[in-house]
């Protein structure tokens, strides 16, 4: 078995002194850390601590927001994603799964084929292969293989979320950002999604934002704790949850505030 320790730890994403603000409101303050390749980095913190802002900054989803401002750098494999990379390339490399599953108003098949088609894959046989592979990787294939042509909206919430995961996988990203992917799901659906994430780790680097500290403890290799836009602590998950260095981390994970 390959444990995370046995892998060579190579920084995949490097965040250097990142600050993000929306107009006057600062939502991230001088944050620096690294995400290693093939790890799951859990990101925890109370509401409005800047977790979503962080992910949206990675994916450059805030670019259209005129109030959005950022200083500092984000490097993907050493390349600045704001300076040296165009948007489609970046978003192909960094996929994002949102808190609320948001399938496109298309069939299951077309939802997954949407990304590859954007990147100019048009052959039906090729698309079929991609769709099957992605659905299998997201643990959804068995449940939907007989109704790929039905609207994705007809799936259950948990299935929709796995569909969104499959949709991201279909463009073969390198990094996948999850923003509270299980917040609307029941425990069984959550278990399915977590299982999918564990499998994905072998091939992808994952950042998992979660409001559920237990989930971070279950799933992530390392965990970062954010509070009011500051990165309080980042360390091996086991350490964070057993011997946190910072008093605030301890208070948060033991549920004393939030």
């Amino acid at each position: 078995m390959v444990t995370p320790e046995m892998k060579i730890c190579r920084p995949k994403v490097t965040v250097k002194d990142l600050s993000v603000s929306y107009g006057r409101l600062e939502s991230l303050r001088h944050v620096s850390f690294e995400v290693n390749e093939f790890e799951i980095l859990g990101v925890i913190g109370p509401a409005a601590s800047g977790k979503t802002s962080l992910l949206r900054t990675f994916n450059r989803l805030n670019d259209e927001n005129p109030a959005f401002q950022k200083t500092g750098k984000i490097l993907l494999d050493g390349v600045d994603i704001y300076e040296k990379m165009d948007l489609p390339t970046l978003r192909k490399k960094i996929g994002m799964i949102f808190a609320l599953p948001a399938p496109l108003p298309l069939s299951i098949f077309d939802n997954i084929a949407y990304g590859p088609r954007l990147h100019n894959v048009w052959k039906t046989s090729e698309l079929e292969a991609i769709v099957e592979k992605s659905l299998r990787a997201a643990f959804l294939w068995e449940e939907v293989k007989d109704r790929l042509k039905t609207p994705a909206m007809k799936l259950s919430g948990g299935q929709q979320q796995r569909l969104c995961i499959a949709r991201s996988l279909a463009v073969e990203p390198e990094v996948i950002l999850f923003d509270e992917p299980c917040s609307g799901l029941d425990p069984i659906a959550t278990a399915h999604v977590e299982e999918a994430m564990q499998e994905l780790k072998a091939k992808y680097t994952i950042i998992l934002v979660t409001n559920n500290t237990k989930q971070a403890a279950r799933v992530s290799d390392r965990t970062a704790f954010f509070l009011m836009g500051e990165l309080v602590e980042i360390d091996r998950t086991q350490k964070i949850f057993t011997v946190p260095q910072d008093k605030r981390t301890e208070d948060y994970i033991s549920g004393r505030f939030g």
Partner: protein
Amino acid sequence: MDFVGLPVPYTMKPRRISEFLIESAIFLAGTISILFVVLIFIFLAKEGFALFRTVSLWDFLAGKDWYPISYPPRFGALPLILGSVWVTLGAILISVPIGVACAVYIAEVAPHWLREILKASVEFLAAIPSIVLGFIGLVTLVPLVQSLFNISTGLTALAGSLMLGFMAMPTIVSIMEDALTAVPRSYREGALALGATHWQAIWRVVMPAASSGVIAAVMLGIGRVIGETMAVMMITGNAARIPTTLLQPVRTMTATIAAEMGEAVQGSPHYASLFAIGIVLFVITFIINLTADFFLHREK
């Protein structure tokens, strides 16, 4: 407040009664509007069907001559129906592409401050009385069309189409803009996150998601165009001939009713024929609304 101790029926009863009253009032309001529609149709039918005692339905719908006061009178409504169709088609060809582009720009592209200004101006455009637009059309569009195409008169179907196109645009833009903004942000971001460009997201996700609203907007725009009367009457030339190009004078169904109702002798075939035209209009508008309804409630 503390209701403990109050017997349950005591607190429930007034609420039950008011609930009942409100429900009945709403029911009444709903049925009254249906009743009115039915009554209007019955009235139209009663007056209009009298025509078919002297003229066959086919001669009315397909007849090429509209000479209601010559002797013997001819009630061929085809020129009028085609007049309306031509003017409407022209107006749609003009207003739909511009309207769609305008709505997409307002909803998806324009910066916030410009969006508000544009929305306000579109609403302002919708508020201009049609007679005023007709008047402006008469003194500006008509001479323009005349000199542009070098024809003897600018009072043509084209002038009518242009003006009606501008009349329909605010309807199309504002309804479509609502439909586009109602598309959840998550669709857009989902598409963007997969690497779609802004335009790809609009074209392949936002527009299809808003398609029912987009179609409804277009249908309502058409409804507005086909029912318009005074302004078209002022600038289309009012010649009841079957038009072969947009550069000919035409006369629409609505203009015919408005122009001739005053002089038609009540109870005469002429009078009845105007009501029969009304029925045709009613049926056309009804079909348009039904189509719009179908698209609005279509299962996604």
